[in-house]
């Protein structure tokens, strides 16, 4: 049996996920499998091509004519994010506990000690599908995407 399917079934048996979620995950796995059969590793290759995280803020038309409004164009290499996150493992345990405590205070239940290199790769791979596109009423647009 496929390893991923086995994991999903195990999670279902342990009541970590519902039957609906298990069904959705299994369907997604099957779809992924059928698409990758035709073009092997096509999806992975496309994701591997993603190199930068882009953040763009473009002011609205009224701002452009009036000469007001902030324009932001930031390109961050994903490798820098990866290196930065690896750097967290070098933090002294006391500092790490403080960060975890501060995050918990803000309602984010995230422990950096649980962040493993394989999780990091998975996270960055998932980031490749990220796209945020927000347009305000005055025409200002904010875009966050990976290219």
């Amino acid at each position, binding site marked *: 049996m496929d390893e991923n399917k086995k994991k999903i079934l195990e999670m279902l048996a342990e009541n970590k996920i519902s039957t609906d979620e298990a069904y959705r995950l299994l369907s997604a796995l099957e779809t992924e499998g059928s698409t990758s059969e035709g073009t092997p590793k096509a999806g992975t290759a496309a994701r591997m091509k993603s190199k930068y995280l882009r953040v763009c803020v473009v002011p609205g038309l009224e701002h452009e004519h009036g000469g007001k409004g902030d324009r932001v164009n930031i*390109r961050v*290499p994903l490798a820098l994010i*990866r290196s930065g996150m690896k750097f967290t493992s070098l933090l002294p345990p006391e500092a790490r506990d403080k960060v975890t405590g501060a995050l918990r205070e803000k309602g984010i239940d995230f422990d950096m000690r649980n962040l493993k290199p394989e999780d990091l790769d998975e996270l960055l791979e998932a980031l490749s599908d990220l796209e945020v596109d927000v347009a305000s009423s005055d025409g200002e647009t904010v875009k966050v995407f990976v290219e």
Partner: protein
Amino acid sequence: MKSPPMLMHVKIRGERRGFNLWIPIFLLLPLALAVFIIVAPLILIAIPIFWPSGWRKRALHIFGAVFEIICSMRGIKVDMQSDHDYVYISAV
């Protein structure tokens, strides 16, 4: 192997004044190497001192991580503009 950025372009413009700077990092690398060679004997002395405390391993990892971060900066671009201010930083 990753290599550090060769050039860094920093352009800052305020309401009254500003500057435009090209930093040739590739010229600074031999300088950094020379400094490292000078400091190397001190590092060799520090290693046995900090050996029992476990800091040796962490210090080596920090050196590696800092170098990796510098290398990963290649391609970074920050371009921010407001009415009167402009900041542009790029590493190639």
